[in-house]
């Protein structure tokens, strides 16, 4: 643990997600692919986890399960107080709308919607669209530095800006955790820094972040790295030499980002 020892002892940490013996088999024509072979780990609130592993290790499968886009063959996945492993399709949709904040590699914004409308999409599916939610979406857009571009459409924005809209969207439903899939994969190194600084700021504010990546440079910013290999956890360790942005750096990067775009 890289945190002060006393805090972890005195406060029993609440769990954002709890995974137990999670197994996923895909049945192809003639064979069964055992993508995940029973993995278990907990994600306490406020954690910043990087999931890594070579291709074919089960990373994507785990991501889909964590994102409630798929159901496990066996095992439990407790999100808050509910086991989502056996939920129906509609229930999973509700869980995705209300408890998970997605950030994708290719931003995945809806082209015909404006910045603020894109941020609102999860609320729309939660049935909570109203004047107050519009205010919240606007605040989030401002928070990620796009307060001046509320009416812009995604094609009018740069990659970094689009990803920041996506991050704002992932926060709008106040999720249990942000699930980032190679969130910096399409970005240059400067913009990558920006996004990572934003993630750190959110984590410092108490947000739980789970990110899937294959870049050591990116995972070095997390607090903890889970290594997968052949559908099993190879290692699950805290990051010993974590790269941390100082408050001044975060401010500077944010300002630079404003100037650059």
């Amino acid at each position, binding site marked *: 643990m890289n945190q002060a020892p006393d805090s972890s002892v005195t406060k029993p940490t609440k769990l954002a997600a709890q995974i137990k013996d999670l197994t996923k088999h895909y049945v192809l024509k003639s064979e069964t692919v055992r993508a995940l072979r029973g993995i278990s780990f907990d994600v306490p609130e406020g954690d910043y986890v990087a999931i890594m592993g070579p291709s074919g290790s089960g990373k994507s499968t785990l991501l889909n399960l964590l994102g409630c886009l798929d159901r496990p063959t066996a095992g439990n996945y407790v999100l808050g107080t509910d086991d989502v492993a056996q939920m129906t399709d*509609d229930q999973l949709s509700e869980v*995705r709308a209300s408890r998970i904040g997605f950030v994708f590699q290719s931003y995945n*914004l*809806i082209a015909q919607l404006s910045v603020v409308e894109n941020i609102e*999409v*999860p609320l729309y599916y939660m049935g909570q*669209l109203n004047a107050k939610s519009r205010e919240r979406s606007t605040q989030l857009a401002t928070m990620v530095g796009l307060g001046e571009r509320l009416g812009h459409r995604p094609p009018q924005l740069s990659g970094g800006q689009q990803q920041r809209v996506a991050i704002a969207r992932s926060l709008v439903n106040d999720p249990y955790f942000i699930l980032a899939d190679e969130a910096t994969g399409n970005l240059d190194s400067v913009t990558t820094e920006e996004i990572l600084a934003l993630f750190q700021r959110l984590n410092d504010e108490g947000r739980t972040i789970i990110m899937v990546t294959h870049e050591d440079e990116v995972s070095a910013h997390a607090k903890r790295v889970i290594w997968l290999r052949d559908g099993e956890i190879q290692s699950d360790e805290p990051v010993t030499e974590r790269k941390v942005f100082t408050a001044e750096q975060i401010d500077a990067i944010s300002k630079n980002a404003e100037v650059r775009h």
Partner: protein
Amino acid sequence: MRLFRTWKLGLKSLLLHPMRSALTVLGIFIGVASVIWLLAIGEGISREAQKQIEDLGAENIIVRSVKPPDTSSGNFSDIVDFGVTRAEAEMIRLTVPTLKGVVPIRELPQSFIYNGNKNAKPVDGRLVGCTPEYMEITRLVVDRGHFLTHRELDGKLSVCVISAVLANRLFPSEDPIGKQMYLPEKQEYFSIVGVLKERSATAAIGGSLAAQDFSLDVYIPITTMYQRMGDREVKRTGGSFSINSFQLSQITLQVAEVDDVPRTAKLIEATLRANSNGKERQDIAVVVPFELLEQARTTRLMFMMFMGLIAAISLIVGGIGIMNIMLATVTERTREIGIRRALGGKRSDITWQFLVETISLSVVGGLTGVLGGLLCPWAVSLARWSVAEFAPSFYQNLPEVAKIMSPQIVPESIPIAFFISVIVGVVFGIYPAIRAAKMDPIEALRHE
């Protein structure tokens, strides 16, 4: 609120491809407009037909004399004797209680000349011997002078009433009233006592296909006709000539109550047909406009169904257009579907999203189609005018009904066409929408 958002979103997506959406709408537009157009034109034509039948008088029964097929061996002395008789007319008048009036009629093709201008070319027309009731029964209207009177009938006077068209031809510059008319074939003179107003033709009756035309008629008392001309008509054709003998061309019977028409008609037909030595008569035809009217109504229904079928086919074609476009749209927007599913959209949300788009397309098509349909009467008269203007010879050859028919918009066709278009939108939109909703979100997100 939510539905409104969905709808707004749908419109937004549609406006991303304005051309594509417009073409899809056009399919439905044509479908809906053609429902209204075809039904309006069908209704216009059948109204015209019904009007012609109604002009015969729904309360009338018409007994026509029909010349039997020529069985003689060309012997000139054969006299063909046929048709209803004065005695039969009298018998019917005296015995059938449901009748209000009995009008015997005898018609002869004749040519006419104005006595004061005998060098002029004779005008071919029809000489009609009848009674004063004829005017009421055939709905003739006197323009000037008077129609035949009972005094003239009983006195067997040589007076006549002429139709408007004939009056104009014979007397282009003079007042026909009081003038003498000359029949060169019969060598008879009649003095004109009345001129009628113009009257349109009625439906064909008897064996003939031609419509009854009143435009070149000359009416004289039937008593006068019998006294002066007898029952025989000698017709010269080429070298030979034939002699027809008939007392009456037609008896028009007016029934007091329309409800009594069918059974009165049956009674009269049965009585007349059995009238001659056990063998069924073939020289008469009983025409019941009331029944024709019923027939016309059935024909109209079938016609409308046929028109409706054609229109329905065009709507289905429009619907297939919608489906085609929506399937393409769904494939094109696979990724968007994936995003929406990942962000919490349920299958039903996705279904609705696409269904709202197809319904919007079909509603817009339906509304514009209704507007286009309402333009039908105007468009038809424009088309008729331009044909008459730019292709007069073609216009001349058009059937009569095409020249006078005016489309009657069937009020029911508007809501029907509109709702069918909405239903078409739903029916043909539901498959693409369900296909969109059934996509696996993971696959959809991976789609490029």
